[in-house]
């Protein structure tokens, strides 16, 4: 009944007098032109007034859209009858009639009987509820994309569900081609965030298929694809993935009972994958690095575990980088060596299989150690270059290098952080972890000790591999080497018989010490020449002292194996304090009994650790320090938010 037309005055809709007359006629009143005009104007004004008044109801209802309800309220408050029948939420179509200027609202007839007897009763509207979401954390947007978790919580859409089924079927199925396609898609699909928990769950099924190498392999590939998918934010799922991968690395899988199964390759692959996850997503979970190291160390130090587990631990450490090897494997080696040696020395037929396994482990250790030495040498040369040549202390250089080392070892997190027991692997191994109080060991000392284990096989590896080991530092190191040493590679080649790789770095330290240049220690590490090397290296060359494995046979190890003595640094002699090599060595020597090095762990560079820690610090706003990510996800599921 409010038909209106726009006139030249666009400001307001106006009711023409013709409409008024029509309305009047419909109720049987005849209106004169004059009265109609007056009425029209008045109606127009009243409508305007009511509209203006209704707007405040809209404003107070905090809406942008004026509703029929608002208008009716305004009418009611001005003692006017309300307009009924226009309360529908949907817009009403407003139609013009072609002939004649008539406009009307389309109002279809509804068959009430049909409606009443209809079987499809309309569903009631959903319950009003409140959901909470951490929108911004410390002023930053929620790291968890707003879409991921809620969608995961909601029932999955049909399509996603289908996708999930297809993918899992393809990956775990027989067809290798199909699997490849599925993996590639998994790696590049940007819309599967909601499925992530499901995939992670599938992957956590590794434990149930430990007898099936093939399936394990496929699951690992799935992990790889997920990790490589740039659209996925793994968040706390990293833990779960790591735990599954660790399972493949470390566990004495059912599949490894059969020697024909090549579970070694699986472990190698899993180790690679672990390092990949770690380097790419390690920042997502604090303390991950340490937890991994802890569990690897635990396995390594557990003599009861089968050799394949040890193998896994070694390759795992190897994959995590030379720092990990240096910190965990190297200190463990003497103790472990005893066990390994026993296995290797047993030539009985029944032991053949175990011995073969032992050789595998031996090989893995050798590879790891080799890389350790090479990288350490490289780091030392770099460090030496960094520190001014005149300074005698190499340690500063060494330490400096570690500080600057570009992400070779991630910032060690505070160890007070409680281990999050997600997987048994990740449980902290023992209270006093050696590597926690780990002291850097000088390269020469290390080499010497390692040489005592591997003998020529170590040297051979270097000798056979001169370009790699001999000239590890390309570019920047070259000039330095050239200056200090005629040529790093040349002497290496010459000294192939004599720990060639080591000479490069050994040469540096004594020289900087300002001591007379010593012959590099001969590789003749046979227990026959203890005194000689000692006497030769006199005051400065702690190296020789420390590596004097001659003393070792004399000592007894906890394993009561004479060949593997525990104390490698038997001479707590006073030396010039300037050489931290020596100091380190001596301290180790003093404490060697428990192999608990008292020397405090070099303070880690605070800068690198700051971002994650500062972040964690602010978290108590919401709840706990330790489990931020999980908390958020929880917050989506329920209204309850720890405040």
């Amino acid at each position, binding site marked *: 009944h409010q038909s209106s037309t726009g006139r030249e005055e666009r400001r307001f809709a106006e009711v023409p007098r013709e409409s008024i007359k029509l309305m009047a006629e419909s109720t049987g009143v005849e209106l004169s032109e004059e009265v109609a005009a007056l009425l029209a104007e008045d109606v127009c004004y009243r409508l305007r007034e009511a509209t203006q008044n209704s707007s405040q109801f809209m*404003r107070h209802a905090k809406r942008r859209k004026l509703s029929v309800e608002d208008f009716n309220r305004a009418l009611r408050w001005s*003692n006017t009858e309300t307009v009924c029948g226009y309360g529908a939420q949907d817009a009403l179509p407003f139609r013009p009639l072609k002939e004649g200027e008539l406009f009307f609202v389309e109002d279809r007839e509804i068959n009430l009987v049909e409606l009443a007897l209809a079987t499809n009763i309309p569903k009631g509207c959903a319950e009003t509820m409140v959901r909470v979401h951490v*929108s*911004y954390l410390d002023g930053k947007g929620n790291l968890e994309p707003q879409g991921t978790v809620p969608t995961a919580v909601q029932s999955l859409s049909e399509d996603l569900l289908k996708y999930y089924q297809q993918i899992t079927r393809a990956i775990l199925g027989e067809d290798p081609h199909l699997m490849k396609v599925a993996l590639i898609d998994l790696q590049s699909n940007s819309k599967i965030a909601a499925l992530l928990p499901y995939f992670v769950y599938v992957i956590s099924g590794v434990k149930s298929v430990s007898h099936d190498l093939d399936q394990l392999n496929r699951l690992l590939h799935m992990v790889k694809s997920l990790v490589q998918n740039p659209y996925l934010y793994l968040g706390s799922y990293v833990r779960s993935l790591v735990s599954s991968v660790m399972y493949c690395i470390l566990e004495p899988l059912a599949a490894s009972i059969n020697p024909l199964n090549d579970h070694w390759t699986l472990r190698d692959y899993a180790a690679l994958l672990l390092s990949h996850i770690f380097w790419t997503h390690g920042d997502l979970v604090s303390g991950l690095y340490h937890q991994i190291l802890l569990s690897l160390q635990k396995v390594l130090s557990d003599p009861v575990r089968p050799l394949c587990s040890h193998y896994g631990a070694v390759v795992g450490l190897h994959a995590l980088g030379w720092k990990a090897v240096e910190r965990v494997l190297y200190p463990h080696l003497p103790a472990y060596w005893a066990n390994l040696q026993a296995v290797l020395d047993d030539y009985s037929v029944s032991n053949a299989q175990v011995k073969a396994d032992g050789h595998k482990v031996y090989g893995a250790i050798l590879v790891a150690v080799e890389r350790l030495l090479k990288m350490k040498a490289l780091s030392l040369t770099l460090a030496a270059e960094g520190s001014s040549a005149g300074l005698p202390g190499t340690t500063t250089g060494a330490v400096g290098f570690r500080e600057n080392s570009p992400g070779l070892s991630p910032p060690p997190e505070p160890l007070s952080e409680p281990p999050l027991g997600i997987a048994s692997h990740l449980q902290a191994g023992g209270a006093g972890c050696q590597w926690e109080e780990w002291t850097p060991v000088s390269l020469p000392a290390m080499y010497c000790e390692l040489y005592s284990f591997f003998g020529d096989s170590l040297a051979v590896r270097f000798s056979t591999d001169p370009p790699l080991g001999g000239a590890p530092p390309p570019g920047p190191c070259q000039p330095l080497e050239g200056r200090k040493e005629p040529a790093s590679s040349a002497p290496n080649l010459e000294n192939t018989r004599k720990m060639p790789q080591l000479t490069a770095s050994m040469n540096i330290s004594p020289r900087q010490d300002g001591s007379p240049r010593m012959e590099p220690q001969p590789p003749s590490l046979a227990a026959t020449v203890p005194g000689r090397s000692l006497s030769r290296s006199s005051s400065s060359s702690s190296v020789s002292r420390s590596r004097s494995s001659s003393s070792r046979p004399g000592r007894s190890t906890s394993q009561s194996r004479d060949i593997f003595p525990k104390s490698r640094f038997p001479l707590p002699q006073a030396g010039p304090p300037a050489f931290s090599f020596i100091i380190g060595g001596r301290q180790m020597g003093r404490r060697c009994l428990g192999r608990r090095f008292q020397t405090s762990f070099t303070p880690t560079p605070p800068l690198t650790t700051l971002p994650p820690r500062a972040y964690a610090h*602010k978290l108590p706003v919401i709840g706990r320090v330790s489990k931020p990510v999980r908390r958020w996800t929880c917050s989506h599921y329920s*209204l309850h938010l720890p405040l």
Partner: protein
Amino acid sequence: MAAVQDGQMELDAEKETKPEILSDGTSNLSGNTASGTLSSSPLTAAPAGGAPKMEDQQTLIAVLQFLKRNKLTDSVEILRREAGLGEDQEDSQATDGSGGGKGDVDGGDANSLLSRVSITSAAAPQSMCDSPLMFMLSAAGADDQPDVSVVLSAYSQQGDPSLYQVYYSGLKNFIESVLDCHRAELSQLFYPLFVHMYLELVYNNHENEAKAFFEKFSGDQECYYQDDLRVLCGLTKKEHLKGNEVLLDFRTSRFVLRISRDSYQLLKRHLQERHNNQIWNIIQEHLYIDIFDGMPRSKSQIDSMSGSLAGEGKREVNKAKVFHGLLKEPEIEVPLDDEDDEAENEEGKPKKKKTKKDSLGSKSKKQDPNAPQQNRIPLPELKDSDKLDKIMYMKESTKRIRLGPENLPSICFYTFLNAYQGLTAVDFTDDSSLLAGGFADSTVRVWSVTPKKLRKVKSAADLNMIDKESDDVLERIMDEKTASESKILYGHSGPVYGVSFSPDRNYLLSSSEDGTVRLWSLLTFTCLVGYKGHNYPVWDTQFSPFGYYFVSGGHDRVARLWATDHYQPLRIFAGHLADVTCTRFHPNSNYVATGSTDRTIRLWDVLNGNCVRIFTGHKGPIHSLAFSPNGKFLASGSTDGRVLLWDIGHGLMIGELKGHTDTIYSLKFSRDGEILASGSMDNTVRLWNSMKAFDEVETDDFTATTGHIHLPDNSQELLLGTYHSKSTPVTHLHFTRRNLLLAAGAYNSQ
């Protein structure tokens, strides 16, 4: 829509309620002295503040006259006794009051000029008083004439309608030709003159001239008057003038202009030279020119203060002393809780006493020089549970995150889903444990946002069975069977526009379109009281920070102060020219701030009901207010998307925060006041560096005497962050005790 004075028909209906309103008014206006009507009220405990002023006395006399005329002799007697007025005094004053009342009030320079004005009806001079109540009285004083015509009769002295355009454009030309420094000030005249001239034309039935006048000059007006102009534009008939609210505001109040003496002299000279009486009359009758000595203000200075329905606040209004300091924290013996206790015991007993002292010390010792007397407003005694809560609060505040520009709060968004019925109001309890939503379908819903479910108290029969001596009696009275995450409160018959939790979390207030404020018990989840009085939609309500009192404001243009145990209001704060849209208690509970559709903010003294501050500057209805935690500052947000900051002590605007693109429905200061959060219809939360905003002003030398501020345009520097929600307007903001920011709003699927 009907307002208080809404034409003949409403007037009749109104009459019936008048006595009631009047008695309210009495308590309001004579708050200092009257104790009879308020004898039950706790407020009377307050000391009487000296003799009533001249103005108050006149008011009293006017009230007495009205009562007499309506044969309410008893009331007359009581009032006279209470006020201590003699009968003769009243009479002598009465004549004086009606005749030369205007001169008394205006005083000063304008007096001589005013004497030139021909005498209007007795009612007109009084209409300049701020309160509609006074207006009503005066209207009734004029022999029960329809009030509109009384006021409008001022328009009856018309000149030649065809000359109005000439007059106006003459003035316009003059103003445009004066020196720049005066032009800005005199330009303020345009809008009120335009409006009144237009109304005069309409009143005298010169419809066509009025339309032409409007067409020609409406474009010149400042853009922030657009809303009013739109209303005005529709008015072309004398009959329409009667019921129009905006018009009512123009009639009942004088448009206040602040002009320097130089500019004013210039204008006066011009008008006298030209014998332009038409304009001069309007200036005399409908405008109030607040003349000050000193430099004329610049355009930006004027613009920042103007925009309200009735011009700027008069300067003297903001001169009253406001005790904006905080009350002393009550001394609470802080028993250390169990955890601490154990920890202490391990280390040894002696330390325990020490900490006890410390926790009390810091805050309570210092008494804020600006704080009101502790008992200025009688406050409820602290219950044991309140003390416990205070202790909890202190503990929590030690864990509070210190916010700053470098350390912004985290924001949690509480999204109301499936709120088809329309979410209209939200409130959190101070400890952030409960959340209440008011809905357009008349329901109030309460949610628990902690794992603790909401439970009702057992029925009376079951309660009898309980061992009342047991330690956990408070636990036992709860009925586990009723535990649920949310409860729905039914009772209102219109959209719920305001909800507020009591500080002790036992009660909830809700105000609704049905004209009532309801008090709900959160123990039984039933309605306890319906407070009737507003008779029109109640837009907002809030509990006092100490409980017991609450304030409400609504479409009837007044804010009312209530006590939960009184079914009638204790105070009526009348003065706004349009709806009171939001109401907030000062942290010390001695003052109430109200924001209105008339685009002003008023601060009222709870003790005596006086308006102690008028803040103008907003260009749209004000929908949110927030006091800073230290009580010194006030922030206000309006439909124009701007947040303005006010210094309460000096009565000055001290900041303008631009950035929002839609109505600001929520403002909140962080617990320490460093950050101001604003939530808006534009689906954003913005954080502002309020510390910086306040500091910068404090370093300036205050021109408090003139009140002329120059605001730096530094919104962008003060804006610390803008945070978007996907499609959820921000209806409410709340800082937890640890400074986590909670936002709430209903998801809007369109």
